[in-house]
């Protein structure tokens, strides 16, 4: 077996098998580029700007008053341009249960619960499946890297075919052209995002370094590599907390007026409580690593973070992946290239299917069912989530869980439909496109009916381009899907007699 043949096999199967999982990951990641904008869309209280008198101290007081269980830590973040509200999260000491709350700046009270745009971000990095999901995503990332490298080795005319796309060519050729176009032109993006994506959780995926150089003590590793501060619990009751705002004023002074980011209060139920303050700076790729640590009661500065070069390099790579730098243009470009990645996956399965068309392989039906279930299921479920967000009553208990259920049930319904229709792929894609169109076009309308300040006309009138952008994209996607599902079905071209010499036919392998 030649190198090309073995790599072709590796690329075909190593690429096909994780395709659907990778689609979920990449599609969710694409949506997550705008997770903060989606979160605003999903929280009507945030549709119009509001001035606020709410401070970090207020949030801290809310925690003391409303969260009974002793906490391992809690963390809060003040309003920013993209997230104009106070955010709070906590972790309980005993059970490790986490909670989160978002505060309406006008009233100082928690807003109705929603999974928010963060749902897509979490779906992206752990499939909403905790630690196990995180490892599955990591493995999928490795499969993607192998598929990219093997694909490069296999590609015969990588420069000559750079811009080539012949939609009218016979089935497999057209799909292969598309797969190559999106794959090769986007190659730097796909490679860098796959690698940096896996690198984010390097400490979990590859513990060897901590094992060998730190005597198997991960906490010692984290403390030294982050250059941060840690104080052991004294197992004594806490004293009187210094108001958080005084600490923040001190931090701003030390940083020459920089903007405050995350505020983390560790061991708040213990006399060893420490408040760490981080800087917020989206003007650089890597987030700042100069956190200040204060004694929670006296307000005394205990430590300023001294991150070693290696960690700052790691943070830069993480930042490159997260796209929270450089403004909306960076996220827009990442989002478009993410869609190119999705297109590459879809075209890849298209190549596999077309090559085996007409043959009685059991796999064909499974692949068609999966294609329908995932390539349509994911977008439809995402829209169902947004519909649920608008329709579920604010006072519903466990409202976030209800939204997530709507997402899951919609996906399940699409998957069942795709399985039942697996023998009529054209009908399947037209019907699911029609459903997608109805959901996408209907959402801005629903928006208009349910949120007076949040719909397209209102947000445009205010100059709120990011909010308007979401509805605009919905209308665009809906129109495209409607066009696709309504156009007259093209009679399938009979597969042309392949009269070219055998050597040329080989090009179309695998």
């Amino acid at each position: 077996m030649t190198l090309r043949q073995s790599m072709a096999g590796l690329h075909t199967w190593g690429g096909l098998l994780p395709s659907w999982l990778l689609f979920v990951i990449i599609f969710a990641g694409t949506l997550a580029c705008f997770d903060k904008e989606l979160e605003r869309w999903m929280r009507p209280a945030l549709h119009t700007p509001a001035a606020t008198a709410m401070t970090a101290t207020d949030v801290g007081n809310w925690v003391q008053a409303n969260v009974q269980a002793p906490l391992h830590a809690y963390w809060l973040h003040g309003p920013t341009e993209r997230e104009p509200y106070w955010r709070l999260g906590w972790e309980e000491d005993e059970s490790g249960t986490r909670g989160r709350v978002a505060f309406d700046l006008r009233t100082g009270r928690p807003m109705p619960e929603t999974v928010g745009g963060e749902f897509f971000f979490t779906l992206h990095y752990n499939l909403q499946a905790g630690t196990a999901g995180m490892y599955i995503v990591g493995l999928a990332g490795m499969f993607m890297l192998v598929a990219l490298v093997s694909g490069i080795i296999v590609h015969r005319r990588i420069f000559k075919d750079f811009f080539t796309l012949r939609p009218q060519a016979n089935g497999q050729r057209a799909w292969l052209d598309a797969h190559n176009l999106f794959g090769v032109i986007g190659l730097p993006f796909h490679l860098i995002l796959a690698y940096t994506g896996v690198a984010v959780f390097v400490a979990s995926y590859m513990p060897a370094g901590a094992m060998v150089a730190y005597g198997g003590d991960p906490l010692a590793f984290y403390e030294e590599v982050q250059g941060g501060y840690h104080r052991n619990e004294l197992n004594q009751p806490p004293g009187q907390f210094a108001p958080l705002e005084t600490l923040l004023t001190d931090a701003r002074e030390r940083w020459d007026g920089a903007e405050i980011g995350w505020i983390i209060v560790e061991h708040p139920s213990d006399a060893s409580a420490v408040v760490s303050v981080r800087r917020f700076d989206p003007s650089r790729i890597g987030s700042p690593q100069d956190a200040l640590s204060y004694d929670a009661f006296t307000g005394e500065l205990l430590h300023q973070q001294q991150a070693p070069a290696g960690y700052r390099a790691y943070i830069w790579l993480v930042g490159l992946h997260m796209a929270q730098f450089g403004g909306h243009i960076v996220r827009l470009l990442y989002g478009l290239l993410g869609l190119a990645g999705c297109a590459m996956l879809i075209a890849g399965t298209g190549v596999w299917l077309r090559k085996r068309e007409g043959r009685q392989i059991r796999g064909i039906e499974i692949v068609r069912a999966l294609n329908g279930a995932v390539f349509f299921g994911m977008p439809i479920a995402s829209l169902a989530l947004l519909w649920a967000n608008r329709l579920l009553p604010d006072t519903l208990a466990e409202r976030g869980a209800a939204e997530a259920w709507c997402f899951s049930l919609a996906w399940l319904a699409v998957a069942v439909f795709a399985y039942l229709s697996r023998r009529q792929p054209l009908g399947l894609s037209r019907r699911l496109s029609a459903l997608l169109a109805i959901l996408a076009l209907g959402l801005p309308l629903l928006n208009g009916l349910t949120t007076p300040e949040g719909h397209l006309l209102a947000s445009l009138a205010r100059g709120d381009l990011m909010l308007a952008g979401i509805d605009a994209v919905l209308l665009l996607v809906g129109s495209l899907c409607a066009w696709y599902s309504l156009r007259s079905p093209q009679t399938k071209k009979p597969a042309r007699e392949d009269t070219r010499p055998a050597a040329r036919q080989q090009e179309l392998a695998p």
Partner: protein
Amino acid sequence: MILFAFALAYLAMLALCLAMARHHRAVFNTAPTPRRQRWLRATASGLLLGAALLNTASSGLAIGLVIALTQLMFAGVTVGLTLAWRQRWVVPLGALLGVIGMLSAISGG
């Protein structure tokens, strides 16, 4: 400025594309002479450099290069897709983007 940089990125990819005989023939009905191919590739390099410079000037070195590279990739996909379905638009689109880009740069974009 970023919009103008994208226009340059599109034109760079278009030049690179038209330097290839197959695509030149598809758009202009004639094969490109070797001189034209060299000229197109040189222009593409210049436009590419221009896009990188404009982006780094407006967004800093690291972020500017990220924007330049992602713009280039998106521009390449745009050229490829336009060439596949609306061949006659691929050059006028470049001209249009160029005009929009220049206007946006002049108006302090």
